[in-house]
């Protein structure tokens, strides 16, 4: 028998008001009249009669989880929900005739307008249910506690509460944002109502082309074991079960329901700018990938925070996660924390020190988005508390909770809608997007997905820079001048999150510093760059990128390598299958490489699919945090022949020199502002003069010298006689023998699309990543987010030498984001297509037999 034991529960009990305790006592007394739990579906045992219609549209609900209402001794193995349902006072569920909920949001834009979406939520049991539950003949939703229908009703009750609260706060945010003068640049679009991007609907007539459904489905007893999830492609929420405890379900814990809806809310806010009344961008922005990254940690932290918005408790998952000993606090005052943490400036849960901290198991680090996200949830709770105390709202009946959390939703919607902007405009004209082909965010509409998800993905630095800008603009500048810039920066610094030198609020175009907001929208004047006050930076330490290297570059130990290779067939097959199950296909070449060639010799061999894990080394005296490594195509070559696309690599570091065939002048002196791949143009039959090239080059011997060349040049000059169809990534069907997106410069070795970037939580001073994170972890596993996946052509001759030019930057980097040559303004988006923001990490390898 498992007994849920959580230190936090005791804390909560201390904070429970007397009224709640009395109510719970009354609940227990009442429920004792009906101790029977799982009454079979359809049974009417103990159901209130609704003859006079006073219980119309009502159902039995539990307001909190058994762990909160019942305390630490409640057992998951014999859970009975009856004591937690106040049967005498059922709650309103829905007035619809089927078990669905409605949504509505008010838009104040020079007058009040509202929009409603009927049946925007559908509550089902599991994926075999296709029909919504009909209202009972007596017009109620009252079902026996513990029945399948009971959980469906409860899921709808709590999801609807989450949705209503979100729309209430979004209505506040929208009104505040659009009440500011036109001259203030804004991100949440004024046309949000006509675009319908405030829900999963988009342009009405295109709904079926964008979403599977225009309503959010909730599966209260989903088929997923040990899991809850949000599925944006549904869109749906899934609340799973524990295989060993037949009466235990994640849906029994409302904090988990709010958390999962929090992910849905993030998805909505990330995509608010991605549609208009007439068209929708074909992609949607995600916040997070597979394995560990800071975007995913932000998503988890915000989802945890939403549970606090809903129930005011600074702890999540006491019941559902408590069963696994994995519930999470959201305040340093929580007794679940180690004693070193408290709510003083020194005691905050700061980045990066606590990025891998698990309060349930503090001695064993874990690199995981949920635990990494605790820094975000703790900061957000602390900021909310600051608003409550400093914005004149503490006298509100709820202590200012509703008002302060509305400020937070304002900040989140402005921040996330800017970060996830795939139309790349950044700002708008009065009621519609401006029409110029000028972009202020995420490069341009064609490449914005690549930029926002990979090249310049959302990190703690990027998120909190935009968030701080919005605090300054909307909170200090509008709703609460008492919370000033210094206080904002100090709180960020308490959490180690003051990672930027300015607010990047001057509005330069992504491709030209001479173009500003005012060029696209004349009523928005030129914006000044707001610097961070350096006096406020005490805990947020910035480190130079020059001090990041691969381990071999500094270590003399023969047992330390710069890159780990995993080529075990079973491990790789399982990894690929797991990635696909996470929704990340990494398209493998057919006929030229495959796991069948994997020989498990921890070297790179012909035909193999291998995982490459860079073992990065930090030679500084401070921790490096949020290290992001890219292996995607970038502008690092000078194309010398447009008929073949052959190139000379640019001199971007001291490793590849002019003597080795590199070029220091010509196109190598600038970075291409348009992102183009090195693929032949079918109309001109030429390769582009400037293009982003694959990262891996080959060493070609000619006479007594060697030089680094493109894979295309190597395969022709080294006598391999490989045709295009024998190259990696080549694919045709009957209609044409040409693959128009084929890149011949990755014919021999390539990092797989979708697995060409890796993320590392932190690297301690004078340590490698392995020593910092993996060595002390319980499983000694590398996180899936640490891996780059590469495939090697089976026709590559053993002994062939490759050099892959990877690029790294990290969150607390002092010289990865700002351009000293431009008054420390942030780099333009297009500069992330080149070497300037990055440290180039060379991955050299020989192909072995």
């Amino acid at each position, binding site marked *: 028998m498992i007994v849920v034991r959580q230190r936090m529960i005791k804390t909560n009990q201390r904070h429970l008001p007397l009224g709640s305790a009395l109510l719970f006592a009354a609940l227990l007394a009442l429920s004792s009249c009906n101790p029977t739990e799982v009454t079979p579906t359809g049974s009417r045992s103990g159901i209130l009669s609704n003859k006079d219609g006073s219980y119309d549209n009502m159902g039995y609900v539990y307001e909190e989880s058994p762990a909160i209402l019942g305390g630490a001794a409640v057992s998951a193995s014999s859970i009975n929900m009856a004591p937690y349902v106040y049967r005498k006072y059922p709650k309103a569920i829905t007035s619809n005739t089927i078990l669905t909920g409605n949504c509505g949001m008010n*838009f104040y*834009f020079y*007058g009040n*307008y509202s929009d409603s979406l009927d049946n925007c939520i559908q509550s089902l049991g599991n994926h075999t249910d296709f029909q919504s539950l009909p209202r009972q003949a007596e017009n109620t939703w009252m079902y026996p506690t513990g029945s399948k229908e009971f959980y469906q009703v409860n899921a709808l009750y709590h999801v609807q509460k989450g949705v209503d609260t979100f729309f209430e706060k979004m209505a506040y945010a929208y009104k505040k944002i659009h009440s500011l003068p036109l001259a203030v640049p804004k991100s949440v679009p004024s046309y949000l109502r*006509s675009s319908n991007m405030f829900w999963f609907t988009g*342009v*009405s007539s295109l709904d079926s082309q*964008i979403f599977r459904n225009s309503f959010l489905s909730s599966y209260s007893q989903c088929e997923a074991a040990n*899991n809850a*999830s*949000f599925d*944006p492609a*549904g869109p749906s929420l*899934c609340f799973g079960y524990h295989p060993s405890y037949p009466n235990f379900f994640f849906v029994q814990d409302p904090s988990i329901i709010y958390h999962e809806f929090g992910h849905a809310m993030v998805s909505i806010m990330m995509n608010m700018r991605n549609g208009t*009344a*007439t*068209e929708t961008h074909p992609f*949607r*922005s995600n916040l997070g990938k597979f*394995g560990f990254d800071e975007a995913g940690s932000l998503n988890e932290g915000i989802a945890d925070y939403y549970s606090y918005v809903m129930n005011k408790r600074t702890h999540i998952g006491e019941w559902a996660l408590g069963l*696994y000993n994995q519930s999470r606090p959201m305040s340093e005052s929580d007794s679940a924390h180690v004693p070193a943490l408290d709510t003083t400036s020194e005691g905050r849960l700061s980045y990066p020190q606590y990025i891998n901290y698990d309060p349930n198991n503090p001695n064993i680090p*874990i690199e*995981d*988005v*949920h*635990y990494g996200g605790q820094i975000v949830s703790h900061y957000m709770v602390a900021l909310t508390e600051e608003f409550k105390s400093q914005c004149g709202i503490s006298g509100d009946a709820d202590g200012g909770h509703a008002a302060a959390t509305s400020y937070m939703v304002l900040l989140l919607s402005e921040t996330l809608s800017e970060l996830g902007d795939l*139309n790349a405009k950044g700002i708008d004209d009065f*009621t519609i997007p401006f029409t110029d082909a000028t972009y202020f965010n995420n490069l341009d509409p064609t490449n914005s997905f690549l930029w926002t*998800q990979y090249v310049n993905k959302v990190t703690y630095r990027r998120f909190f820079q935009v968030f701080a800008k919005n605090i300054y603009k909307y909170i200090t500048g509008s709703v609460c001048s008492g919370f000033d810039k210094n206080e904002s920066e100090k709180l960020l610094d308490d959490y180690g999150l003051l990672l930027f030198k300015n607010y990047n609020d001057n509005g330069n175009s992504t491709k030209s510093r001479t173009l500003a907001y005012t060029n696209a929208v004349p009523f928005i004047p030129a914006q000044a760059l707001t610097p961070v006050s350096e006096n406020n930076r005490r805990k947020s330490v910035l480190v130079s990128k020059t001090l990041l290297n691969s381990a071999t570059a500094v270590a003399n130990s023969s*047992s330390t390598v710069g890159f*780990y290779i*995993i080529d*075990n067939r079973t491990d790789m*097959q*399982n990894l*690929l*299958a*797991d990635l*696909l*199950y996470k*929704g990340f*296909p990494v*398209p493998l070449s057919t006929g030229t490489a495959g796991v069948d060639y994997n020989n498990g010799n921890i070297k790179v061999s012909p035909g193999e699919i291998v995982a490459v894990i860079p073992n990065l080394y930090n030679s500084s005296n401070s921790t490096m945090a949020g290290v992001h490594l890219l292996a995607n195509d970038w502008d690092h070559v000078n194309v010398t022949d447009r008929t073949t696309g052959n190139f000379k690599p640019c001199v971007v570091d001291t490793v590849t020199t002019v003597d080795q065939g590199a070029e220091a002048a010509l196109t190598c002196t600038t970075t291409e502002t348009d*992102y183009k*791949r090195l*693929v032949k143009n079918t*109309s001109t039959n030429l390769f582009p003069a400037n*293009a*982003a090239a694959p990262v891996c080059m080959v060493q070609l011997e000619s006479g007594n010298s060697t030089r680094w060349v493109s894979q295309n040049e190597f395969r022709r000059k080294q006598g391999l006689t490989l045709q295009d169809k024998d190259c990696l990534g080549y694919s*045709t*069907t009957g*209609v044409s023998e*040409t693959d*128009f997106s084929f890149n011949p410069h990755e014919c021999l070795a390539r990092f797989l*699309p979708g697995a060409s970037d890796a993320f590392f939580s932190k690297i301690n001073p004078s340590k490698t990543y392995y*020593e910092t994170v*993996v060595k002390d972890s319980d*499983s000694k*596993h*590398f996180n899936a987010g640490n891996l780059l996946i590469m495939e090697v052509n089976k026709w590559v001759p053993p002994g062939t030498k490759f050099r892959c030019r990877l690029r790294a930057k990290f969150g607390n980097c002092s010289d990865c984001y700002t351009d000293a040559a431009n008054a420390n303004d942030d780099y333009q988006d297009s500069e992330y297509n080149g070497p300037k923001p990055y440290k180039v990490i060379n991955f050299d390898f020989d192909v072995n037999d």
Partner: protein
Amino acid sequence: MISRSKIFTIFAVLVLCLVWSMQNMKKKAHELARSSAVVAQAVPPNTLVFPASNKNGREVITRLQDKQTQKAPSNKPDPQWQDNFEKILVIQSGSKLRDLEVKKLHSFVWSVGGQNLNVESVLVSFKNEKNESTKFNALVDSQNGKIIQTWNQPVKDPGNPRENFGVKLDPRYNNE
């Protein structure tokens, strides 16, 4: 004879009138803008302007005046794209996929790294060997089924994050 002070007064009144009328015009213009905004907001959300179509009836997505996508696509749609696409998924899964469903949502022309291609936007759903469902969206080459982009991946919250997947370091790497 009109005195200088009278001339000044008349001039000042004229200037004031001019300023007032300009401000009034500005105010009216702003009110007009407001009212048109309100009209714009009041337009039913399902008022849809379909993007331009090319000769084959395939929608050319001109994302907010992105001129690049005006060029003719390089590839030709082939019905075999779906078989190829499904094969790619099956290979990666190690044949562990169950109930694979590829639902075509939308066909259009899209610029991929500087190349214009006919593409299919699809919704993929399947189950793994544990009967757990997964869905995501993908953009696929209409000719050969190659995956161009994927998005809308699920956010999974395991009860125990310590059981999340990863890879173990080969013991031959001695890092102690």
